[in-house]
């Protein structure tokens, strides 16, 4: 476990060594705030909750998380440091998990900095803080799922831009797979079982259930399973592609 902590520290430090970290956090906060106020009518609704704030998280993540994930493996492969990392006495699991946890912790820091919203809404009224906490957890889990997909796909290429685009596309598919657009497309010809499976993979469905206050452990398990699956795939892809 010591190795994972060392890798997390190095990765986190490297986020903050470049302007990426500050740009990311700033844009995330500005967008999260303006979407909640201007599009979500945070004040005009006259309700003390953070639903208009959380509603936009999947869409924000869709754009921002691939930018966090794209460098994870693509950069290591491009600069050749992957050879250094994987010839140190650590296991592949430690390398994959350490890198993922660092990016997840970083997205957690960005999320934690939205705390003023929570303070504001508590100042203005009496929100259900249980739902808000659950929403924060859901948002964090969803960020983790996006990051796991992004880490996995960034191992496929040396080019960070390709990693970004492919990750954004994949995350989009996962996000909207429960929406009428996708389901309507499948409904005509696929059996019911396929339809419900595809719908079941929708990040949006799982996320929205939690932020509306329907707290079901299965939604958390869903996101954790997605993370586990993509990290496993990540390790396999790194092993296959590391020498290219």
């Amino acid at each position, binding site marked *: 476990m010591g190795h994972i902590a060392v*890798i997390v520290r190095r990765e986190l430090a490297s986020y903050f060594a470049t302007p990426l970290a500050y740009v990311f956090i700033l844009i995330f906060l500005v967008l999260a705030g303006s979407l909640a106020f201007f599009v979500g009518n945070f004040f005009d609704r006259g309700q003390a909750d953070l639903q208009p704030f959380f509603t936009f998280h999947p869409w924000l993540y869709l754009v921002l998380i691939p930018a966090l994930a794209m460098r994870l493996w693509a950069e290591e492969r491009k600069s050749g440091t992957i050879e*250094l990392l994987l*010839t140190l006495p*650590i296991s592949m699991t430690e390398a994959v998990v350490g890198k993922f946890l660092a990016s997840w912790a970083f997205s957690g820091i960005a999320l934690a900095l939205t705390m003023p919203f929570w303070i504001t809404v508590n100042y203005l009224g009496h929100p259900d803080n249980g739902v808000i906490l659950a929403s924060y957890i859901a948002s964090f889990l969803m960020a983790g799922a996006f990051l796991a997909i992004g880490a996995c796909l960034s191992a496929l290429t040396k080019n960070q831009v390709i990693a970004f685009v492919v990750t954004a596309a994949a995350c989009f598919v996962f996000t909207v797979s429960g929406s009428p657009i996708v389901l309507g497309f499948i409904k005509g010809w696929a059996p019911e079982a396929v339809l419900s499976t595809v719908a079941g993979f929708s990040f949006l469905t799982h996320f929205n259930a939690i932020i509306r206050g329907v707290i079901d452990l299965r939604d958390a398990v869903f996101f954790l399973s997605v993370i586990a699956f993509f990290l496993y795939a990540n390790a396999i892809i790194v092993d296959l592609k590391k020498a290219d």
Partner: protein
Amino acid sequence: MASSKIDAARPDEMISVRRLTKHFGPILAVDDVSLAVKRGEVLGFLGPNGAGKSTTMKMITGFLAPSSGTAVVCGADITEDPIAAKRRIGYLPEGAPCYPDMTPPAFLQFVAHIRGFRGAEARERIKTAIARTALESVLAQPIDTLSKGFKRRVGLAQALLHDPPVLILDEPTDGLDPNQKHEVRKLINVLAPEKAIIISTHLLEEVDAVCSRAVVIANGKLVADGTPEELAQRSRHHNAVRIEVAGPSSEVAAALARLPGVASVEPADDDEGDALMVFARDGRSIVAEVADLARAMRWEVAGLRVERGRLDDVFRTVTATAA
């Protein structure tokens, strides 16, 4: 680490490469390479670019999985117990990759922590590695901004940090200026008695300067193995005599060529002035014959030297026949 067993039959054998083979799809990159390196030996990997030197090193260090065969490092099999083997290896990958946004001390600290050193011990080891590779002047700069020579030294510091029994250095002096090359070679010579070292290079002078043994790899195969002297003996220059004579060189050359031990006479291709190179038949010693003839003919000899052989020759011959 204590639980690992050292090969009892060959206690000195610190690196043992056993029938290592690597396919990349249809391409056979490394073909059944076996070799052993003992403590105190510096083994030079020679070969043209793309011959399989780096691929072999990548397999020994556990970066690439062999298609078949294995390497055993101080008793730890790289395919069965990769982490134990990697602990014993200091590896400088080709091009000396280091994390560009880190400063050398931060980077070395990362490596020290991964290798299990903490606190004062980590600081001490980082200090030693920095001193050994003379990095003191660039400690505050991100590795990104360093010159090629300094980057290579950071990579070297990383490989030396844990004072490993086995060092594997892929082109350690590539891109360095002559002074830096000299420093790195001196460092390798200092480290050599306690360690088993493999370095790859395409500089033959480097083999002379640091290696106690050299292997030539061409097309993935091991085509020659021996001390630099043994390899040099396979050169056509081995025991050739370089002679500088005043007067018409064509007559001198013709007379020399008639000697029974002489294979051929050519103008010397070095730039030390006009001279003839008298090649010996089958590498036998001909200097006495040449000297006798010179005395008998009363030539004005300005210089006479026996060549020990040239690695370039051997390198070219063995790699050309293998191709």
